[in-house]
């Protein structure tokens, strides 16, 4: 009977084929999700998708791009946001 922790969805399942030909289920820790742009939902580059404990050990400049809205908006959306501010137009 599977243990409670294996049924809760806390772990991701990996199906491994054993030398005897059986397929067994291994349970591993879920991967962290990638950061996405707030406006266009594009996957952000330069933002590590690691566990918070590992990210906290990194220097601040390695956690997100060094520009305004870095790690929140993608570069194209950041440009749009700044242009709307400069031109005085609502985004």
């Amino acid at each position, binding site marked *: 009977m599977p243990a409670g922790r294996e049924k809760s969805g806390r772990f991701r399942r990996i199906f491994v084929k054993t030398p005897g030909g059986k397929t067994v289920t291994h349970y591993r820790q879920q991967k962290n999700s990638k950061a996405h742009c707030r406006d266009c939902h594009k996957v952000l580059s330069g933002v590590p998708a690691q566990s918070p404990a590992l990210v906290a050990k990194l220097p601040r400049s390695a956690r997100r791009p*060094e*520009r*305004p809205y870095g790690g929140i908006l993608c*570069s194209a959306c*950041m*440009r749009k946001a*700044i*242009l709307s*501010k*400069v*031109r005085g137009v609502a985004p």
Partner: protein
Amino acid sequence: MSLFTIGRLCVKIAGRDAGRTCVVVETTGDRFVVVDGDVRRKKVNILHLEPLEQLIELKSNASHEDVKKAFVKMNLPVWETNAKKAGAKPLAQRMVKKAAKVKVPKTEKKAKEETKQ
């Protein structure tokens, strides 16, 4: 005629300095200009600049000091690089640490051990 003439105030819209105000100091070719002001003085693509209405009277290839004067007049912030000072640690602090690290001579150590035994 290009909008990016010498003295044109702009806002950088790309990179680390995005959102900061700058002024065109020199034009190099039809696509690149040198900017200074509240940004690092560097050659940039005009596609990475948003021109503003204001024009400042500046000489071609004006120095950072000239740009700084013009920006201060207009109540605009200016980019300043503060170089790290060598030996920033106060001398007194270092002396205290040194005093704490004074080694006890070996002969004294031996004498203490003998008395214990």
